[in-house]
């Protein structure tokens, strides 16, 4: 055992020595470019500079993003539902990043699950508001002057506070010369970097510019989502929606998941599904269960978009002197994209500072973080597939509702169904953990009992009628 740990330590030192000899490490004066100033880019810059300072490494970090998060509407938006998961809020706090009340528009304390057979409120077991509803940009069109700040702007502020510079230049291409990445700009100038971190997301054209690079990245699989904003008064949004995210499990074909998220004087509608089109959006928004969740004076769809989301990981989101983080590389299926951006950004930053910036270094230290997400996504696909089946059967929806409602009413110590629904909708736990919960004998036993009770009630009702 001792021999094995000694040999593994020797391997690490040998690997670091090889990286240093090959020049594929960051050293004093190294220049790092981050393409994209969203969460992945800002987290990467923040941790890169923090870790570099811890080992007295002086590097130059430039974040390239032409957008300003001070603008309302699409110009300053990052096209997202705007939820920071329960687990990420906690981890950020443990990292010393406490989201201020000027950024958090609503602290979420429960999820209200609506089905055609009824609704149930799933309360946060911690008994406190640990999910943040916010705007990535400066809010939707029609927002006017807001008292809240942009989340992406806040994170960018953390990065610039550590010493990163924000460059509002449009990049027109990437070249590789003498083994270094060079960025070309619209004003015909160019700049050489030691490391380029791509955090441009899947809605940017930048990923197409990587086609000609030696890295030979393939674009990830994507699908379209639909996000739109309803405007009302702050008091009315609070009265109707409360501090709850409203999620919908409705038997509407092609609709995977939909939610309404309360934020200040807006409510954000998010829809995920196959081939989302106007017809599907119209069907959903006109469903009686959905209409009941909107204030009567709400102005519909003051701002809407159909952004792409990453549905399949890149096989190799790294190369010598280049790494793809956040949505550009690997992200979680449907949920907690900001959490995945945080995890991949921090893994890439620690690799660059402590292991090197070669393909081999990223393969050893960065890829395991991405691989853990992709493997978990495979289980996630299975879980969402099962949910899809459940949505099709009226009887099963009644069983889910009954079981969750009883657990909430009795404040059960082991709320199997509530935990499953909470973790599926909030994205707070890995899909693998949710799956383990779903095959737990306690869960299966309770499900069978509720199934039987529901069947019995159905029979009694038939007799009476």
């Amino acid at each position, binding site marked *: 055992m001792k021999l094995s740990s000694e040999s593994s330590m020797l391997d690490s030192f040998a690997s670091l020595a090889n990286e240093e000899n090959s020049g594929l490490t960051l050293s004093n004066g190294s220049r790092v470019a981050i393409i994209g100033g969203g969460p992945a880019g800002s987290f990467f810059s923040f941790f890169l500079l923090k870790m570099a300072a811890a080992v007295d490494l002086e590097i130059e970090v430039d974040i390239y993003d032409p957008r300003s998060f001070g603008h309302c509407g699409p110009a300053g938006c990052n096209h997202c539902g705007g939820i920071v998961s329960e687990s990420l809020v906690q981890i950020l706090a443990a990292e010393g990043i406490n989201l201020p009340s000027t950024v958090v528009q609503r*602290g979420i304390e429960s999820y209200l699950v609506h089905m055609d057979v009824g609704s149930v409120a799933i309360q946060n077991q911690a008994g406190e508001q640990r999910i943040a509803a916010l705007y990535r940009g400066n809010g939707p069109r029609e927002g006017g002057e807001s008292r809240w700040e942009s989340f992406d702007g806040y994170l960018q502020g953390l990065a610039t506070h550590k010493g990163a510079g924000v460059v509002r230049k449009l990049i027109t291409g990437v070249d590789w010369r003498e083994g270094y990445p060079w960025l070309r700009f619209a004003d015909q100038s160019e700049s050489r970097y030691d490391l380029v971190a791509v955090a441009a997301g899947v809605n940017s054209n930048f990923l197409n510019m990587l086609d000609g690079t030696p890295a030979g990245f393939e674009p990830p699989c994507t699908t379209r989502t639909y996000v739109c904003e309803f405007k009302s008064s702050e008091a009315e949004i609070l009265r109707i929606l409360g501090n709850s995210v409203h999620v919908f499990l409705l038997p509407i074909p092609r609709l995977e998941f939909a939610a309404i998220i309360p934020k200040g004087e807006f409510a954000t509608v998010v829809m995920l599904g196959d081939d989302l089109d106007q017809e599907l959006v119209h069907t959903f928004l006109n469903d009686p269960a959905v209409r009941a969740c909107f204030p009567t004076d709400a102005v519909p769809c003051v701002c809407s978009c159909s952004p792409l989301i990453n549905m399949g990981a890149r096989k190799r989101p790294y190369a010598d002197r280049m790494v793809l983080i956040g949505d550009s590389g690997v992200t979680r299926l449907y949920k907690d994209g900001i959490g995945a951006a945080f995890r991949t950004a921090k893994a890439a930053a*620690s690799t660059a500072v402590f292991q090197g910036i070669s393909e081999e270094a990223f393969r050893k230290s960065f890829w395991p973080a991405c691989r853990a997400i992709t493997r978990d996504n495979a289980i996630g696909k299975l879980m969402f597939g099962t949910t899809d089946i459940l949505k099709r059967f009226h009887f099963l929806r009644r069983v889910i509702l009954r079981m969750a409602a009883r657990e909430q009413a009795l404040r059960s110590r082991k709320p199997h169904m509530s935990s499953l629904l909470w973790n599926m909708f909030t994205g707070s736990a890995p899909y693998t953990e949710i799956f383990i919960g779903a095959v737990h004998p306690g869960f299966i036993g309770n499900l069978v009992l509720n199934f039987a009770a529901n069947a019995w009630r159905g029979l009694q009702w038939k007799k009476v009628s």
Partner: protein
Amino acid sequence: MEKGVLIMSTGVLGKVYADGEVIIQQGAAGECMFVIQSGQVEIVQSTDYGEQHLASLRAGDFFGEMAVFEKEVRSATARAVGDARVLKIDKKTLYRRLQEDPLLAVNLLKTMSHRIRVVSAQLALHEPDP
């Protein structure tokens, strides 16, 4: 309107504790740590000689971490001084992340190391002269 002037209770994270309200009780079992989001929290310990004030903590500080790392009861009581907003961090969430990212521990170690330094200095002050 100036940003941050109007802070609504709906746009905050964690739980608000009123002045004097106990957040964790000495001797109680616990499996989570806490991070102060706003306000102040005092840490006190009951001894044979009465209640001893150990520390005053502010926004950004954490407490209750000893129960997360050791299977022991809370060694001290934490209570709000004025209104304090505090976020709970679950042991499971913390351990899951620590397993993925051991560097997270550096942040916690820094604070714990600083606390040991402060306690050492206080003990040195109380040591009788030889």
